[in-house]
């Protein structure tokens, strides 16, 4: 009896079937958003870490300050700032763009720290060997240090990327039609939480492959030991 009630509430196939198209639509938006965030966030993080490797003091202080603030702020606050506060100064961003920019800034901050830690983890002897053969600073960074640093950063970077792309759900607050938004909308129209269950399934379907992708990248970047 209780089971029937439970199933009817959370796994109502009729409701699920009705909202499946919407959830699929939401999945597409989530994927688009996530891809944009990962692309710009990781790229910008890498660029900042490389700039930091030049160890120009005032520049590095700027980077550290920016990164620390971005890591301290809740991502939702940044999204809301972009979406609701920027129109006040005449900049009008869509919900999608606000979420994309906000989360990619957060990913930039974390990625920069991770890449920087990777660069620092490459032993000094690697720099010395390369420089002693006449390679420039930039060539050494590019050919000797970065390939080793990136390999070290793959596991933490994958985890952080997954955590931040899951933050695409925060876009629901500014009416981005991603999975959670569609699920909540379905819930309020049908008075039944089954769309939320469907949404949860959608997240699992989407993110489990990403976890495996992370493992695959990790093993690809491993050189033979």
């Amino acid at each position, binding site marked *: 009896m209780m089971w029937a009630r439970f199933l009817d509430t959370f796994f109502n196939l009729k409701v699920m079937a009705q909202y499946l198209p919407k959830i699929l639509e939401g999945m597409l938006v989530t994927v688009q958003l996530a891809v944009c965030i990962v692309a710009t966030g990781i790229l910008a993080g890498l660029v900042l870490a490389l700039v930091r490797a030049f160890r120009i003091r005032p520049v590095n202080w700027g980077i550290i300050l920016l990164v620390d603030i971005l890591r301290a702020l809740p991502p939702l606050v940044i999204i809301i700032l972009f979406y609701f506060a920027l129109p006040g100064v005449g900049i009008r961003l869509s919900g999608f763009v606000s979420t994309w920019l906000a989360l990619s800034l957060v990913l930039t901050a974390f990625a920069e720290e991770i890449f920087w830690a990777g660069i620092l983890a490459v*032993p000094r*002897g*690697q720099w*010395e*060997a*390369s*420089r*002693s*053969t*006449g*390679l*420039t600073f930039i*060539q050494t960074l590019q*050919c*000797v240090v970065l*390939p*080793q640093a990136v*390999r070290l950063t793959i596991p933490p970077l994958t985890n952080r990327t997954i955590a931040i792309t899951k933050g695409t759900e925060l876009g629901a607050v500014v009416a981005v039609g991603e999975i959670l938004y569609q699920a909540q909308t379905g819930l309020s129209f049908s008075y039944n939480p089954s769309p939320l269950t469907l949404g949860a399934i959608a997240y699992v379907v989407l993110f489990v492959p990403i976890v495996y992708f992370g493992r695959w990248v990790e093993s690809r970047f491993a*050189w*033979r*030991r």
Partner: protein
Amino acid sequence: MDGSPLAPILDVQGLRKVFGHLEVLKGIDFQVRPREMVFVIGPSGSGKSTLLRCCNRLEEPTAGSVYVEGVNILAPNVDINAVRRRIGMVFQSFNLYPHMTALGNVGLALRKALGKSRQEAEAVAQKALARVGLADKTQAYPAQLSGGQQQRVGIARALALEPAVMLFDEPTSALDPELVGSVLNVMREMRESGMTMVVVSHEMRFARSAADRVVFMDQGQILEEGPPEKLFGQPDHPRVREFLASLEAH
């Protein structure tokens, strides 16, 4: 640049190096002539490695001058990368690039610093590896090689650039005793082919048999230098006698 055959390839004058409050080199004068193999010995902390590392500016000297093939490498307008291509360096801990094969390790500077094509670089690298007895290990990664083989890749990496002088910073100190011989054999072969070498090492027996000249350093100064039979046989300085006696006690 002095064209005479005896003009020193490496000429260090009044070299001082200070780390914080610690004066590691206290005015070193040191010359190496073409085809010479010079050993620098002395207790640890005497500044041997720092002297070597000042010769290609892995450490910045505090004062003094360093000339390589007549070029003042401390001059503000010097192209340090060009200078370093002329000075090979071999490290105690090998410092091979773990993400590249032996061939890649040797070929990298040929491509990036000398601007050779990948094919050219691989041909030269192959030759350098064959010279150190590793013709069959070109595709091996450092982790698949023994310490002795890794160090020989390190030598090939420096040798492939055809430097004017090679600096060895305790090349065999990190090796198991049975692997030391393979590295020393390569160094002996290099000496016979006329390579100019400066070697910081604790391999006294090898120094005695292979060195043209031995330099003894202690506390940032050169206390004595001379041919090995003199320095190991009848050293003038009591500190040298003491050091050699302490080695024989083991």
